[in-house]
């Protein structure tokens, strides 16, 4: 996994609550066997009309928002299906940080496994960012856990383990495999195969 330390980017505002993963990536695109190439299907039904042309009123299609790496959203983002394809699509499209008020549990976990940083801020702060012009840079410093927008610097919380993994770009499985002794010990004391 690629490490994440610092990012300076403008944001794409997605001013909708309760965005579900079926919208982030509709089911017809879950049939691929790899992890790459999902970006073009991100928010497919909101982004393209029935002939496959860009809808001009959807934020991802605004020319001035092209190349931005922060997605700004609201409450309860990523609800529903556990499909990690939603995260692969956001990542492939170019987003590195998702800034919002609250997130669904499985989506939150999936983001970190792919090196996407989720930042939760209080509603008044998110409201304030939404009310601005969207032309200001947002500076994210993971080590110091700060988000800087114009002259405001907001502190954010992140679990220290997740922070460490992101900063170092650590592969979780190799870390877990170092706990072989603990796992073996558990397996010698417990029998998960109780049906035998």
């Amino acid at each position: 996994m690629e490490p994440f330390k610092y990012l300076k980017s403008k944001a794409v505002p997605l001013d909708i609550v309760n965005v579900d993963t079926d919208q982030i990536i509709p089911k017809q695109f879950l049939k691929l066997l790899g992890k790459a190439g999902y970006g073009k299907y991100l928010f497919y039904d909101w982004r393209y009309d029935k002939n496959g042309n860009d809808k001009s009123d959807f934020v991802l299609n605004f020319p001035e928002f092209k190349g931005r790496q922060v997605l700004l959203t609201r409450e309860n983002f990523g609800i529903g299906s556990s499909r990690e394809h939603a995260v692969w699509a956001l990542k492939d499209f170019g987003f590195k940080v998702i800034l919002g008020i609250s997130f669904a549990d499985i989506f939150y976990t999936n983001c970190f496994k792919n090196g996407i940083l989720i930042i939760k801020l209080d509603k008044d702060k998110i409201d304030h960012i939404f009310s601005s012009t969207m032309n200001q840079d947002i500076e994210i410093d993971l080590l110091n856990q700060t988000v800087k927008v114009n002259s405001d610097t907001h502190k954010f919380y992140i679990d220290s383990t997740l922070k460490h993994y992101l900063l170092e770009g650590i592969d979780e499985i190799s870390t877990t495999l170092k706990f072989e002794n603990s796992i073996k010990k558990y397996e010698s004391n417990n029998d998960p195969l109780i049906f035998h």
Partner: protein
Amino acid sequence: MAQTVYDKIWKNHLVYSDDIDDGPSLIYIDRHFIHEVTSPQAFDGLRMNNRKVRKPNLTFATVDHNVPTTNRSLPLVDEISSLQIKSLQKNCGDFGITLFDINDQYQGIVHVIGPELGLTLPGTTIVCGDSHTSTHGAFGALAFGIGTSDVEHVLATQCLWMKKAKNFEIVLNHGLKNDLAISAKDVILSIIKNIGTSGGSGSVIEYRGSFISKLSMEKRMTICNMSIEAGARAGLVSPDDVTFDYLREKKYSPKNESFERLLNTWRGLRSDNDSKYDKSFMLNVDDIVPQVTWGTNPAMTIDVTSTIPNPDEYAKGNEEEKKSAIRALKYMNLTPGLPITDLSIDRVFIGSCTNARLEDLIEASIILKDKKISSHVKAMVVPGSQQVKMSAEKLGLDKIFVDAGFEWRESGCSMCLGMNPDILLPGERCASTSNRNFEGRQGTGGRTHLVSPVMAAAAAVAGRFVDVREWI
């Protein structure tokens, strides 16, 4: 100190815990279910890093998400789906994992077959790359959905890093006024309507109370299944005699002395009487009437006796929720004030891991016996598994459905998520026994209304939503 069933399962599965930091604990996973859609990338990851599957005998696979529900002796028309299925076959073969393949007598929706095979047992930890894994919580198991990275992690290590969630009790007391017309589906929809799609966020919900203790396993599964729709990490019920009786003589469940010995352990799992919960919600189920969703998330639910709400009434002062309701009304092509029973429908889907078990099909068939569905409705039943299908056929239910005008299909996820050819066309309105009414869920532009099996069956006959209490 008093412990909840969740506390007990958590403690029993701790492989490593760092008490000093706010960090996660390493939890052992007893059962891992996989399917064709969310597992290929996990196996790729193993191969790329030369890793093995740590415990192939704890992982069980089936094909359910994209399989056709029509004649399966024919080759698959969808080449990409076919590739996913072949890929699962190869992965299971290469790594020594048991697969209930497309023509296996035990094939079915992963959350239907786990319990019916006796793989889902009290006190176990169960994961699957599918959010409706919460279904298995009905057996007093800690069961939750995971992403593909975690599928790979479980394959490689048989463990997951997790932080303990909050204990959230939902106490359901009394009984339903009409327990055929009103069902477990109406209870869980009422709960989600009340607590919202993020009401269970960060929590494991335990369903308790006199209503739950009298409920069958299949109905408990319907309730636990939709815990994820309230945003919960998992949903569960303390195991009791109803649970143990269900598990006797299942294919994989322990037999004879082993079973009796396990009973003692399992009886100790139930939440202690004076357990403390971080959150509580109480609901007297005798107030519940049949429910219908009107919008584009499962909290957008009303009583069948109600009218489509106006956005202000729905949002209760929350501006963002109001915008979301306006958006939902537009997508669903609905006007506030319209009685839901005036709404005509085009399609009916009885199926999914929420409502495609034998009891669901029996109840729907009671409504349909000697009736015909409306001439403008297309309806289908997709049994949850081959075992459900065979049991239903033994009871002659297939004949009742077919005589009424339903299509009787092979088992799979089907039109719950429309990954196979079973989809709604743009603008079509569907009464569905599934779990999600998100935009485009059952097909781009399709409009989904979630209901119970009896409500779906009655809607098929009437060609519109009806209050099924008037029929039974």
